[in-house]
């Protein structure tokens, strides 16, 4: 995809007026914080007392977790958070993408879509449902936004309660210890910190085509869209694209996904294909090997999209809403990384961590966590854990580092896809096909029988080493409640789970999760992996 165009409106208004000047916590430094200060002083032999022990730029999942943990350990902490409105003017409060325009509203809308589906199933189970359910978009966005706002408030309460100073200001680096704060009214002030954590996260990219910035929305806008999206085109093959297209279809909006090449790049290929197969079977239209060329607004307000297909043929259609989900860029452009010599990848804008200390940048007292850390998964719980562990290393003298291996995740498409560890491709590449055994099963959830739901894509596979007890290096689950199923298995995989241990476990009947411990068919055998009966 072409380089992102980043030109948010210049007169970016602040989300909340933070009229209060930040009030320094009056607590004396705890011994641990003092120790770090003293060691710093000794090493530089200049006794510098900075305004704060820690300045965190970015109040998302990672930044908030790090700042609260540091404050609990006695450090004096300032966190800066500022949201540039989206090109469409969407804005939100404290808490970052996950809370405001990511995981939380996404999961709620996904759930809303599943509820609609459940109403249809309910008829088959005997419920007297007299009308076909339709979604009231206004009610949905209102309740979702109410919940988001209550989380914004909760974050502010927690910061205050834990005596973390907070400023609704945009931070950038002046030198290794000095941060410039741009306030709501455009006032500039500076603050100094012994340590600085960069946690500014990412924002959606726009492809470089006519009309994209003017007319398309992104996930920054969808969850607070002031009108029903109607007939929607979602452009991109990311999990964001598929999740949004999935719940929009489920909510009853005619939805098309446009994909240039592979869906869910980086995930297991077979699983990704099953995900899109299921979506297609559930009514989402897919335009594969298509790229958008231009978007224009017609007199009736609809959007005319022109595209090119894999054969170079031009085509097009009209939509009420076009959403870009072609990836995200690290929001580091205005941080001043070069000013202080923080190394970053020009391609992604991400900060390069040190080998022995993954969150530490090339400037020793400046760290990066979350979505702007190069080569690490862009996941809220990863950012939170990395932030907390970093706070402990800085202010409690611990040495524990974030383990980025075997991080589980779930894609909340209509049929959910949970995974932990390696994809089948990655395992074959790492260990060689002669050293890998893959167990798999197609299964039908009990609940699917009565409403005659299609279970063609309900599938599970374990990617194992072939030798010995067959250590499981990757587990993939496609089915209802995949997030709930995968979490526990992720613990087991991190504890070194082998295939032999797994199949010696007893299942819980009747569940989907039991299919994981019952897997007995290998791909190598070529036998039919379809589960029948109990």
């Amino acid at each position: 995809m072409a380089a992102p165009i980043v030109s948010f409106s210049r007169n970016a208004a602040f989300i909340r007026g933070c009229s209060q000047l930040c009030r320094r916590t009056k607590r004396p430094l705890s011994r641990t914080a003092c120790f770090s200060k003293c060691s710093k002083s000794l090493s530089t032999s200049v006794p510098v007392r900075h305004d704060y022990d820690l300045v965190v730029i970015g109040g998302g999942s990672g930044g908030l977790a790090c700042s609260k943990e540091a404050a609990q350990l006695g450090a004096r902490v300032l966190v800066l958070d500022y949201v540039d409105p989206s090109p469409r003017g969407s804005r939100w409060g404290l808490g970052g993408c996950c809370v405001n325009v990511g995981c939380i509203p996404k999961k709620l809308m996904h759930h809303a879509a599943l509820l609609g589906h459940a109403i249809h199933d309910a008829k088959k189970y005997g419920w007297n449902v007299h009308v076909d359910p339709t979604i009231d978009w206004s009610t949905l966005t209102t309740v979702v936004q109410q919940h988001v706002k209550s989380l914004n408030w909760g974050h502010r309460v927690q910061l205050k309660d834990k005596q973390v100073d907070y400023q609704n200001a945009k931070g950038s680096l002046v030198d290794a210890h000095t941060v410039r704060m741009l306030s709501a009214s455009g006032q500039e002030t500076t603050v100094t910190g012994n340590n600085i954590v960069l946690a500014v996260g990412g924002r959606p990219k726009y492809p470089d085509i006519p009309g994209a910035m003017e007319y398309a929305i992104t996930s920054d806008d969808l969850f607070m869209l002031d009108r029903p999206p109607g007939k929607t085109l979602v452009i991109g093959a990311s999990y964001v694209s598929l999740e949004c297209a999935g719940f929009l279809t489920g909510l009853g909006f005619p939805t098309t996904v446009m994909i240039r090449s592979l869906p869910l790049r980086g995930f297991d290929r077979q699983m990704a294909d099953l995900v899109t197969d299921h979506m297609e079977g559930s009514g989402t239209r897919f335009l594969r090997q298509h790229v958008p060329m231009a978007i224009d607004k017609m007199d009736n307000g609809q959007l005319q999209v022109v595209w090119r297909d894999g054969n170079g043929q031009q085509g097009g259609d009209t939509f009420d809403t076009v959403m870009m989900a072609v990836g995200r860029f690290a929001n580091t452009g205005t941080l001043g990384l070069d000013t202080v010599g923080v190394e970053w990848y020009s391609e992604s804008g991400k900060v390069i961590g040190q080998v022995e200390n993954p969150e530490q940048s090339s400037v020793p007292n400046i760290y990066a966590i979350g979505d702007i850390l190069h080569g690490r998964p862009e996941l809220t719980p990863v950012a939170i854990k990395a932030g907390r562990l970093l706070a402990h290393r800085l202010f409690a003298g611990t040495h524990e580092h974030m383990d980025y291996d075997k991080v589980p995740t779930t894609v909340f498409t209509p049929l959910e896809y949970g995974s932990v560890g390696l994809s089948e491709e990655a395992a074959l590449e790492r260990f060689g096909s002669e050293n890998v055994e893959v167990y798999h099963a197609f299964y039908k959830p009990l609940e699917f029988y009565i409403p005659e739901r299609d279970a063609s894509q309900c599938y599970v596979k374990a990617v194992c080493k072939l030798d010995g007890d067959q250590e499981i290096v990757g587990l993939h689950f496609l089915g209802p409640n995949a997030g709930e199923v995968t979490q526990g298995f992720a613990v087991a995989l991190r504890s070194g789970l082998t295939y032999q241990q797994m199949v010696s476990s007893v299942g819980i009947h009747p569940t989907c999760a039991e299919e994981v411990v019952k897997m007995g068919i290998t791909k190598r055998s070529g036998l039919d992996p379809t589960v029948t009966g109990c």
Partner: protein
Amino acid sequence: MIHFRVESQAHVLKRSLDPGKHGNIMVVSVKVEGLSAFLEAVENHKGKAIFALFTGSHDAQGKSWCPDCVAADPVVEQCVKGAPEDAVFITCSVGDRAFWKDQNNEFRTHPKLKLTSVPTLIRWETPQRLMEEDCAKSNLVSMLFEED
């Protein structure tokens, strides 16, 4: 269902704030007892920033049955001075202990309140809410009154 009457003719206190900081700004303070009186007070001040403290009622001797409420009172009274100039501050008594403890009482069930504890301090029609001992923390209470 018990219906409380308004304690007095929704008696209104005008309080002058620290003139050095805010000029001669007045926050309208209203005291009511019972849900219907509360809703009436809200209706009377529609369009303004409305803050409400739900608190345990005092007995004939003027004693509150709710120790957290007693702890919160002076903090809230101090911090309300930082509220916006056109704000209304409603103190609503939720009844005696027996009434409050009834899990079906109207404060617990009203969809816009759904109170679970007293004291509860809210900014009306927002998710901004503080409960129990948080109502006695001046930094939290100030934030609720001063920042939207």
